[in-house]
Each structure stands twice: as structure tokens, then as C-alpha cells.
């Protein structure tokens, strides 16, 4: 059956009578100074092939030496995910690919450094089991020129950048405990916050420091047995993750409903067409011939070291959420709680908590953080807690209208300037209420019919008057003040 014929079901993959089963493998780049097995810098965005040496190029004769900081960060991740940290060994995963310098990847196979943990999702409160979180090396990055959608097949030539080869990764493997694309999104979001909070990774999906493979299967509601799964490789954004799972689930349901079988395979997500396609059999017919890496000795972290690492882990998302909910009477659901989850997920909770501690109005601080600040996260470092607090206070004191406050925050994120300076430069002087009264009266005069209806109780017309006043004031008037003037004029 043609893939494009499968379009029933919502974007979330909600399919009546069916249950989606998802397990995720999340690859996370560790925020180490150097690579996993050599002294090359671990940094993003360098000129291609400048952060390389005989070891990460896998030159003949070179040998790996494990990076202690990478092991420490991996253990931090394991502890943050409630895993057991134990003795582990490395294996070689053998397969040929041009971006893999040794044509094998050093990874942990039989015995991972972190095993048997769990993670609790903040919204659904679901507990997702973590099977393992193991250390492995990243590969280089290929660029295929002239091929089909950037893939190697049909490419005229390929370029390889080995800067990424040997960057330390931790692969976090969940049990197949997720039941929808939305849960998968929630899991990755929460996992990302944990990784960032434990200072193990910067969690930047857009820079590839977090990459997700999704194992998806479907089964009829009430059936216990798992369906045949397909693995969708390399999902690089939450949007892709949700769309790919939804698509894949619908594809599998359609197959089964039309009497066909799901074939276990690795699939590729095509972002442009919104479909998953089977990788060519050559791309997946691997026998990785795992065997213990003879160039490395077993990792045996001492109990003392693990305890020390544990003591260095900062506030994790669950505690961070608690810190914010305590500002809102321990709220545990509803829109404010959702905003708290978002704030923590985006790493904005320090900003909110800091501003509230300095006297900002909690609700407003949370709202502005999760809307205006969240829309320009890339510039977050431009915004100090003090400046943010000042902007919130100016708004709550009526010195800035809501519209003005949003604009001011936007500019603050761009320039790093403080709220007062930005407001002044934009001409957002506090508008005197007598001036606003004048504008309100002007609007009442020019719209007598509407005023009559409003006066006789048609409250919905308030918006009309506020809008007109805003227009005249070029957005400088505070909507709340306008409304209160309108109401006083009516009575």
C-alpha cells in the first residue's frame, strides 16, 4: 500500500482502537573539554577537520585513552536518571562507513556504565524505565553532494568532517514505555532538562548535541503482546519526533488493517515530505560483530568517586519544578503548572525564581518568561535577572502596558540593555492617565452607537473601545487602565 494513502488519525497519531508503543534511544553529546579518547577540543562550529589528531582520525598505530571527565559526566547522567552505576566494559561495533575513521565504533554493549534507572514525566506523571545509559564515541559528519536528499546513494561525491569523530556521547535507552507521540515529546523534553541541569550536556537539538532514534510499534487496544517495531533514525527536533511517530504509527495501522504485516526495519524520516521510508537493505543489513575492545581496560568507578560525583549534581528538574510550584501554592496541574514545566524544560526557572526573589510578581514573571523570553532563547544570556525583574515590575506597576512590556523584553534580549533604557529609547514613557482619559473620551465621541450599546450592557464591546484607544495611543496606553476608565465612564 502506498505510503501517501495513510493519512487517517490526528497529528499525534491517535488512532481509535489502537495503542502506540514507543521506546526512545537518545544520543547526547557530553559537554567535555576534550574528546572521548584524545586531547582534541570538543567544540561545535569549527572549520572542518581542524579539531583532529592521529587518535580521533583512527590513524594506524594510534590508541584510545578514556577521558575521565566524560566518564564523570556519564555517571552524572546515570545518577540523575536513578540508574545503578557499576563496572562496565567497551565493545567494538564493526561496520564500514566513511565518516567512521576506524570503521568500528567504540561503544558499550554487554555491560553499560549506567543501567536500570527511571524518569518521571512531569505532566502525565508517568514513570518511564531507563534500560541503560552507556558511553560511546560519535562519528564524523558526512556531506553528500548530488545525492537523494543528502544521502550517500547517488551522491556525486562526499565530504567528511572528522571534528565530531570521537566526541563523547551517552546513549540513553528507554524501555518501550511511551504510549503516544506526545508522551515521547514530553520524555525528550524532560530528559533534555535533566541533561542540562546535571551539566552533562548542552542539550541543543538544533546543533545535533541531542539526537533521537524512535522504536515504534502498534497493537490493538487490550492486546498485551508488542507489535513488530520499526526504528526511525536521527530525529533532530521535537517536531520531527512527534510527526515521525504519528506518521509511522498510522502507516503500521494501515498496513495491518489491510491485512499486511509490519516488517521490522530501520526507517529514515523525510522531514520535507513528512513520511518515513525504509532504508535500503544495504544500509541496514549489518552484523556488527561486537567484541570486547582490547585497547581499553574495564571502567571501575570507585564508590567514593560515584558519591563525590553525586554531590556535584546541581538541582534537577523535579526539584526545580518544586521550587517554582512553591511560589504558586504547590500547584500541580492546570495552566500555571504547565507554564512551570515549560519554564523548567527551557531552563528559565532560575530567571523566574530569581526575579520573584527580587520582588517581581510571580504570575507575570512566569508568563513573560515562558512566552516572550522563551521565543528568543538563543539570546537568553543577554538577559540578567535584575533586568528581567525590572521589566516585570515596570509592567505590574503600570509603567509599561502589556504590549509595551513584551516589546521591551524583546529588545532587551537583543541588546542586553536594561528595561528603563529600552523603554525610553522606544518612547514608552508611562502614559499619564489624564492623557488616556482624553483618548477614551475622544473614542466615545467618535463612536456614539457603539458607546450606547456598551452602556446598555453589551460588555463585549469593551474590546472595541480598548482597541481604538490603543490605536490612538500607538500602543502606549495600558489596556487595564483603559478598561477601568471605560467602566467608570459608563456608570
Amino acid at each position: 500500500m502506498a505510503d501517501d494513502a495513510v493519512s487517517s488519525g490526528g497529528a499525534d497519531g491517535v488512532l481509535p482502537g489502537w495503542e502506540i508503543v514507543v521506546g526512545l534511544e537518545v544520543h547526547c553529546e557530553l559537554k567535555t573539554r576534550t574528546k572521548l579518547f584524545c586531547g582534541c577540543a570538543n567544540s561545535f562550529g569549527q572549520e572542518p577537520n581542524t579539531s583532529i589528531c592521529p587518535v580521533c582520525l583512527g590513524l594506524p598505530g594510534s590508541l584510545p585513552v578514556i577521558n575521565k571527565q566524560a566518564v564523570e559526566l556519564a555517571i552524572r547522567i546515570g545518577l540523575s536518571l536513578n540508574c545503578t552505576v557499576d563496572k562496565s566494559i567497551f565493545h567494538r561495533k564493526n561496520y564500514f562507513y566513511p565518516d567512521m575513521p576506524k570503521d568500528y565504533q567504540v561503544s558499550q554493549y554487554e555491560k553499560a556504565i549506567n543501567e536500570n534507572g527511571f524518569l518521571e514525566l512531569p505532566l502525565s506523571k508517568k514513570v518511564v524505565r531507563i534500560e541503560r545509559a552507556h558511553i560511546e564515541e560519535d562519528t564524523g559528519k558526512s556531506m553528500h553532494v548530488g545525492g537523494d536528499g543528502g544521502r550517500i546513494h547517488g551522491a556525486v561525491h562526499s565530504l567528511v568532517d572528522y571534528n565530531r569523530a570521537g566526541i563523547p556521547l551517552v546513549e540513553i535507552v528507554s524501555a518501550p514505555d511511551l504510549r503516544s507521540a506526545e508522551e515521547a515529546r514530553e520524555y525528550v523534553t524532560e530528559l533534555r532538562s535533566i541533561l542540562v541541569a546535571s551539566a552533562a550536556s548542552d542539550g541543543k537539538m538544533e546543533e545535533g548535541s541531542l539526537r533521537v532514534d524512535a522504536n515504534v510499534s502498534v497493537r490493538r487496544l487490550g492486546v498485551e503482546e508488542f507489535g513488530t517495531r520499526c526504528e526511525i533514525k536521527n530525529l533532530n527536533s521535537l517536531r520531527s519526533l512527534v510527526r515521525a511517530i504519528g506518521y509511522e504509527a498510522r502507516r503500521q495501522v494501515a498496513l495491518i488493517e489491510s491485512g499486511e504485516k509490519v516488517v521490522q526495519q530501520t526507517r529514515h524520516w523525510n522531514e520535507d515530505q513528512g513520511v518515513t521510508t525504509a532504508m535500503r537493505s544495504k544500509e541496514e543489513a549489518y552484523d556488527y560483530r561486537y567484541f570486547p575492545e582490547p585497547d581499553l581496560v574495564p571502567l571501575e568507578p570507585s564508590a567514593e568517586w560515584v558519591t563525590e560525583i553525586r554531590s556535584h549534581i546541581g538541582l534537577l528538574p523535579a526539584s526545580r519544578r518544586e521550587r517554582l510550584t512553591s511560589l504558586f501554592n504547590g500547584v500541580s496541574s492546570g495552566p500555571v503548572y504547565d507554564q512551570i514545566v515549560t519554564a523548567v524544560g527551557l531552563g528559565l526557572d532560575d530567571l523566574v525564581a530569581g526575579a520573584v526573589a527580587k520582588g517581581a510578581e510571580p504570575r507575570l514573571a512566569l508568563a513573560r518568561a515562558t512566552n516572550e523570553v522563551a521565543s528568543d532563547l538563543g539570546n537568553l544570556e543577554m538577559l540578567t535577572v535584575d533586568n528581567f525583574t525590572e521589566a516585570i515590575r515596570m509592567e505590574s506597576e503600570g509603567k509599561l502596558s502589556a504590549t509595551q512590556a513584551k516589546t521591551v523584553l524583546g529588545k532587551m534580549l537583543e541588546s542586553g540593555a536594561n528595561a528603563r533604557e529600552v523603554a525610553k529609547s522606544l518612547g514608552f514613557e508611562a502614559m499619564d492617565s489624564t492623557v488616556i482619559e482624553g483618548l477614551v473620551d475622544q473614542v466615545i465621541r467618535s463612536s456614539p452607537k457603539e458607546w450606547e450599546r456598551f452602556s446598555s450592557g453589551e460588555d463585549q464591546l469593551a474590546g472595541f473601545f480598548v482597541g481604538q484607544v490603543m490605536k490612538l495611543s500607538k500602543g502606549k496606553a495600558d489596556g487595564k487602565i483603559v478598561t477601568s476608565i471605560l467602566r467608570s465612564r459608563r456608570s
Partner: protein
Amino acid sequence: MGALIGLGASAIAEMVSSKEISALEVTQEHLALIESHDKNLNSFLQITADAAISAAKEVDAKIARGEDPGPLAGVPIALKDNLVTRGLATTCASQILKGWKPPYSATVVEKVSAAGGVALGKTNLDEFAMGSSTENSSFGPTKNPYDLKRVPGGSSGGSAAAVAAKFAPLALGSDTGGSIRQPAALCGIVGVKPTYGTVSRYGLIAFASSLDQIGPFARSVKDAAMLLQVIAGHDPKDSTSLERPFPDLISNLDKGVQGLRVGIIDELIDGAAPMVGDALMASADSLGDQGAKVEHVSVPAVTYGLSAYYLIAPAEASSNLARYDGVRYGLRVEGQDMNETYVSTRTKGFGAEVKRRIMLGTFALSSGYYDAYYAKAQKVRTMIIDSFQNAYDRFDVLLSPTAPTTAFELGAKAADPLSMYLSDVCTIPTNLAGHPAMSIPYGLGENQMPIGIQVLAPALGEVNMFRVARAIENAAPTITKGLFWN
């Protein structure tokens, strides 16, 4: 022939340090000898004369400035061509590394150079160290300097032949299953495989990582000890390198063997040629005469060594040699697509024996076969270690032939890999156990070719091993036969 040819490493270092002779003249004489005679021997793949001369001048300059030139002051040394050398082609005797010049040097190469050693060039080997006769070199075989119709052994045949032919007093080789000891035996010199982890493998092009170990060749036990002393020690670049301080071999060398318990491994005499067995018994008797307690001992698991080795070593090799894919360096044979480029490059670049072992190893690691082959071989490896341990509970060192025969004729075993593999039956168990062992020449057989005696010791047992080797050397008949060039 120059007057300095034939001097041992310790003599040269002493004379150079005391300015009796210059490092430059030592180097020049050895280069001249190589120049005139190596065309018949083919022990060197590359002679680095310019680099050698400037290194020798640097040693002389150091001495002139009153600085310590190091323990190998001005001593010429040959390097097996699987040790990477910065800026100098390193081939592993393979076509697949064609044109590759490493951007770095092996730790041992740095250490030798820092100790005042003068590298003369890179020596021939079986391709990627896979073989026992040096006939698997893609640059033609090396010959035995005592009989040019015969092989020098292998895989470090170039290094062994060069030292035996007096082209250099010292050489470095690598030993994965006997690749130092067997050619040392066949060429009538001393060759040592140290305890695994004693010498850094950084810069040794890997064949089988869990078995590979670099070691010295010399014409005397003392010179071998001297070189081992220089190259041993912890290297932070090799995770498998041991952190223990390496013991002083030289000062213990002449302590004799009084009271040492020596066991002759029964299982390794059975397959040996009678003349080799006789030499072994004679060497054992001489140890008895010098005060050692010599007895026979059974180490039953050693008979499984060969089978386990030919699963483990090829398995590791199949992975270690995957990187030669034509993408980054060395030979590339362009194909229609990536896969075809891989296949064409590797088909053209690797010789038959390398391909055979890659296939063996790939098979042994394949899903469905792993447990029956690779995993089982690892269990045998443990058995061998246990079996040796039982013997070392009662003995300080063990004795065996180094190789079952003396040097065979070129081509004699080339067509029959299994009979070639059997050349290493006595040496392989040591590698599987990670123990040290060395070969000491013990006269000539009835065919006028050298015989080697193997001294085996438990892990870190180098001190006793060298004491026993020295005692055997003291008692051994002198090799009177002339070299091919004199």
C-alpha cells in the same frame, strides 16, 4: 668491512660516550654495509640514511657539549616497518598503505631516539605481521643471512636478518604469536617478547591488540636487556600499558641460576625436530650444571594454543584492519559507489594471507558463530593461563624450543598455510597468556642452521628470564658458520 661492524650495542654505546669512536662513523659503517649487501638479503624496506646521519651527529654534538647522550649513544638500530615514524613512509609491507607518511612517531621510536639510538631504516615483515617467514611481504621476501635460500622466519624477519647480518647491533620487532622469537631463533640471535603491557603499543600498527607486544632483537642477551630497559615503562597513551616501574635487568643479569627451578615443557618437545630437541636438552643440562634445578613439566593446555590463537588474532585483526578502506589515506581504487570502492581498494591492497585472516576473523565474530568460536577461544585462553599458573607454582621459568625446526627453504611452506602456522606452536601460548618469553641461540643443527631455545616466565618475570637466558648464552656453542657476505 668497517672495523666497527660486529660490535655489540653496549660496546658501541660505551665507546661513543667515551669519545673513543664517533656515532657518525658507527652509523656510516653500518649504512655502507647495508648499502653493499642488503640487495641480496632484502631486510630493509627503507634506509633512512640522511635521518640516521643527522641523528648520529646530534649524539656526537651532545657528547661534545658534555651532555648525557643516553644509554644507546650512537647505537644503530633497525625498526620493523609496522612502527610508525613521523614523516617517513610506514608500510607494514602492504600495498594498502601506499604513499602514507605518518604524522607522528611510535612511543618506542621516540624513546630509542631520546636514548641516543640511531634509526637506520625500516625493516621488512610479513604483511601486517601476519606470517612466519617474511614471504608474505608485498615487497618480496627477506632471506636468511646464513643461507640465502632459506627464510629468516617472521613476521619480524627483516629485523632479525638485519641484526644477524650485522647491519645493526639492535632492532625492534613486534610479537603477536612469536614474530620476534621465531625469527630470532631461525637467524641465530636473541629476541624478546616482554610481558604484555611492558612496552607501549602506541604507534605499533595493530595486528591483534590483545596479543601484540614490541620487543628487542640483539646478538647478545645483555644488549637485548639494554634495549628492553630503554623501551619499557608506562605510557599514558596506551591504556593497556602497565604502571609498574620496570625492574633493572642489567644488574641482575649475572646473578647466575643457582637454585632457580626450571621446567621443560613436555608438550612442546614432541613436535620438534630431533636436532632441536637435542639442543633443548643440552641447554637444560647446562643450566643444571650451573646450579639450576631442572625437571620436566606438563603444561597440557598449550596444545590448544594454536587453535585459540587462530580465532582470537584474526578476529581482532578483522576489526583492526577495517580502517584501510581507501577513504582517508593509503591506496584508493575508485569504484562506482562507496561499497565498490571499499571492495576494490581492499581486494587490490591486501595480500592473500591478510585476506585469509580477515575472513577467518570476520567469521569468528559473526552473529551465530561468536559463542562457538571467539567466546570459546577466550575460554581456552583462560585455560592456558591457568595451566601455566600450575606450572609456575613449581617453577621459576620454563624451557621449550622456540620453533619446531630450523629455518626452512623459501617457498617450502608458502603454499600450505597450516604447516606455516605450526611454526609458531611453541611461541603462541605465551602471547595468549600475556607472559614474557625470549629466544636464545644455541648453536647450529645438522643442517648448519641456527637453533633457538625459548625461556618462558610468568607475567613480570623478566628478571629471572634474563638470568636464565644469560646462563644458556654462556653455555651455548658458538655459531662458527659465516654470514652470506663473508
